[in-house]
């Protein structure tokens, strides 16, 4: 069983509040939600919609098919009625001109006026929806008390009751037992992961859709005694992060592709000064300003090579909000272990999408700093870039060992960090830095496998396409088709063991990505020499749905 409610209208009409209250009511009643946000780059007006999909079992993705449309505008009905099921319903105010037999015009506005406050009309809608899905009214009342107090709360409770009285029970919903869950979006999950990992300094410049990470971490500054600084630009943001990291703080920044572009020179700096940094790129379609509030997977090739010349680095893409928490904490440890920049690739779909899941297990998070102490360094002048077998030099924090100083230099340098021009030393330093890639290759994780172990058709993707893959592959499985999938999380360096093994078994391989040319497909070809000819590429700024993947595969099977 799962249902899908679509709330649509202009920005600023209050549908986010209605959606937020409903989300809480549904999750408190013991159901799992997947919340999907589709919005325009404007503060007021336009056509935006939220989809609230819920079920008695965990959900991993949104879906096209809708059971209920809550229309804040006539345009919403026109745009989305094609996806409404036959048994579905459209809830709209009485003054809308909607010619659809499934429409149910209800006096939300009239009731709100009667109650003496037009603002409560959203709560009237909540009441009507709660009834139709047989959700517990007392839970809805409890949720309202978190939003309002005093007279306004009383008024909203009345509005809820009046809305509840407007409709009848319509949808069958198995009673779910109450359980301890959290409902969190990708940006918040990254922020929480960073806090668990002991991030004490964050610097960033606001850029949709990456701003949510900064917002969340900023909300905990006082509680944890940490600092979030809004930089004058993204160049400053990453340079500040590198300064703080050099001085011993765990530090991070978050942005989208445009901001990441401005950070490129500093990414090279992180590489040559061997200073850890975690950089989150929440992708949106480009180039340049592109589609600011939409989703994409267009930055893969860019971030694995951003900066002139070559540096050791790691790139981790996020497949779900659940994984985002753990992967962010892991990114900090890997950045410290190899003294490298680690890029986390998220996207708008994941960043803004809320998912219900069991609470994170914080005891799984270990903070590993890999710092050297005075004893290890000894009495001799400290060599920050000591040539070692694995390329990793013992790292200390300035000011912690009396008598020992060191410098980091964006110029090529010797073991002490001093500027050099000798070709021989240059080779030694370049080889020392790039040697770290051997270790990183041992630490990368193979992609997740879904579906058939002996697939006739193997789907290959990365990042947030995971949820849609999971549902599409499960559907093929129910139909007895041998379809399997690999979903990459770590993308650089590319883990190649599983893809090589499954490619041998599969009769056919199709890559599914959110970019124009099939960037992962090209990367796999480059790293494994396995031809990746069939590619489903989508670059309209919208996420792949499980239905769309299913249809596209059906067409070619």
């Amino acid at each position: 069983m799962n249902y899908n409610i679509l709330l649509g209208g202009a920005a600023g009409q209050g549908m986010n509040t209605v959606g937020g209250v409903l989300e809480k009511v549904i999750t408190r009643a013991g159901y799992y939600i997947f919340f999907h946000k589709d919005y325009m780059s404007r503060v007021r007006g336009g056509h935006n919609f939220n989809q609230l999909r819920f079920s008695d079992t965990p959900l991993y993705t949104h879906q096209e098919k809708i059971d209920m449309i809550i229309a804040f505008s006539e345009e919403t009905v026109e745009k989305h009625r094609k996806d409404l099921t036959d048994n579905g319903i459209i809830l709209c105010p009485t003054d809308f001109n909607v010619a659809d037999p499934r429409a149910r015009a209800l006096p939300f506005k009239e009731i709100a006026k009667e109650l003496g406050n037009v603002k409560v009309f959203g709560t009237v809608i909540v009441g009507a929806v709660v009834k139709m899905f047989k959700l517990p009214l007392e839970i809805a009342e409890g949720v309202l008390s978190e939003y309002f107090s005093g007279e306004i709360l009383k008024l909203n409770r009345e509005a809820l009751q009046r809305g509840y009285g407007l409709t009848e029970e319509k949808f069958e919903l198995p009673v779910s037992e109450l359980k301890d869950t959290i409902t969190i979006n990708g940006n918040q999950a990254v922020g929480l992961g960073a806090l668990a990992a002991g991030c004490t300094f964050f610097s960033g410049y606001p850029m949709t859709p990456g701003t949510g990470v900064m917002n969340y971490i900023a909300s905990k500054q006082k509680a944890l005694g940490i600092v979030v600084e809004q930089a004058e630009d993204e160049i400053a943001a990453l340079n500040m992060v590198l300064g703080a990291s050099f001085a011993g703080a765990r530090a991070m920044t978050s942005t989208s592709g445009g901001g990441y572009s401005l950070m490129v020179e500093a990414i090279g700096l992180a590489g040559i000064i061997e200073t850890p940094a975690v950089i989150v790129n929440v992708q949106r379609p480009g180039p340049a300003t592109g589609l600011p509030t939409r989703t994409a997977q267009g930055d893969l090739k860019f971030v694995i090579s951003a900066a002139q010349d070559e540096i050791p680095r790691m790139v981790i893409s996020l497949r779900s909000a659940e994984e985002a928490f753990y992967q962010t904490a892991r990114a900090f440890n890997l950045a410290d272990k190899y003294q490298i920049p680690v890029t986390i690739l998220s996207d708008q779909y994941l960043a803004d999408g809320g998912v219900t899941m069991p609470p994170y297990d914080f005891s799984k998070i270990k903070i590993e700093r890999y710092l050297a102490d005075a004893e290890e360094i000894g009495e001799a002048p400290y060599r920050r870039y000591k040539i070692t077998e694995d390329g990793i030099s013992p790292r200390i924090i300035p000011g912690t060992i009396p008598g020992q100083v060191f410098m980091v230099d964006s110029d090529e340098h010797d073991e002490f960090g001093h500027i050099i021009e000798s070709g021989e030393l240059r080779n030694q330093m370049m080889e020392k830095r790039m040697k770290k890639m051997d270790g990183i290759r041992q630490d990368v994780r193979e992609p997740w496998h879904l579906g058939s172990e002996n697939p006739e058709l193997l789907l290959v993707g990365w990042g947030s396409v995971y949820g849609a893959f999971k549902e599409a592959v499960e559907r093929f499985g129910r139909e007895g088709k041998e379809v399997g999938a690999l979903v990459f999380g770590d993308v650089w360096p590319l883990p190649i063991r599983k893809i090589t093994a499954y490619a041998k078994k599969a009769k056919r391989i199709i890559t599914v990505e959110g970019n124009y040319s099939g960037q992962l497909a090209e990367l796999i070809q480059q790293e494994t020499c396995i031809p990746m000819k069939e590619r489903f590429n989508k670059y309209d700024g919208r996420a792949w749905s499980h239905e769309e993947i299913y249809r596209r595969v059906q067409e070619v099977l």
Partner: protein
Amino acid sequence: MMLNTRFEQSKETAWCPGCGNFGIMNALESVLNELELKPHEVVICSGIGQAAKMPQYINANGFNGLHGRALPPATGIKIANKNLKVIINSGEGDTYGEGGNHFIHTIRRNIDIAHFVHNNQIYGLTKGQASPTTDMRFVTEVQAGGVILEPLNPVALAITMGASFVARSFSGDRAHLKEMMKAAITHKGYALVDILQPCISFNKVNTFKFYKERVYHMKEDYDYANKAQAFERSLEWGDRIPIGIFYRTEKPSYMEKIHHLSDGEILADKKPDPMEAEKFMDDFR
């Protein structure tokens, strides 16, 4: 023998013999020793350029970053460890040109950093193009018809932006330069010292002699707490060039405005426990 208990300069540098940078390095070395700081407690930051090589030549900690980007890492360092003394030595192209945006916003932050700008009114390392402070009509290979852009006045800009310490000195006046450096390093908040410095290779106009004949010390009774007067004085440039503290005021620094930073534990010393953050999951229940 303990390592690095006193500041010393290295004997070899990449600077031209007679360069103004030597005077600045000598002054900095003795100021750091006179203030009884220890090398491991000091970080000298810079961007790129001839002046920006300073961290290479003094035995303190150093962050020789990217062109134009001396200020942001310095800011990050100070926030991460408030006990480190953070000093910047960089050129006027690095600071006012490539890094202009950071200059403006670091003034707004008023963070405890002493910023020494080696201002020779020319690009040295790239061999003689106009810098943001090059006077109009100055002829270079690029500006073959003479500079047509108006020069940037760093002192006036810093005063109007609300910097809490704005001074100018001259690399050829060691005693004065040391006095300005000391005052800047001990100032609470962001302190700018624009240091006039000849470039013997590429600036044949603003020479040692040019500055020597023009610079004068502002009188002892000059009131550097008067912002309007400071601004007026900052516009004086020509036959006479004033040096000294133009403007100085007491106001809360960045660190002081974040109480958990000024009163709390050093960020870099924190030993976070992942379980500390577990309670935040309540935000999502």
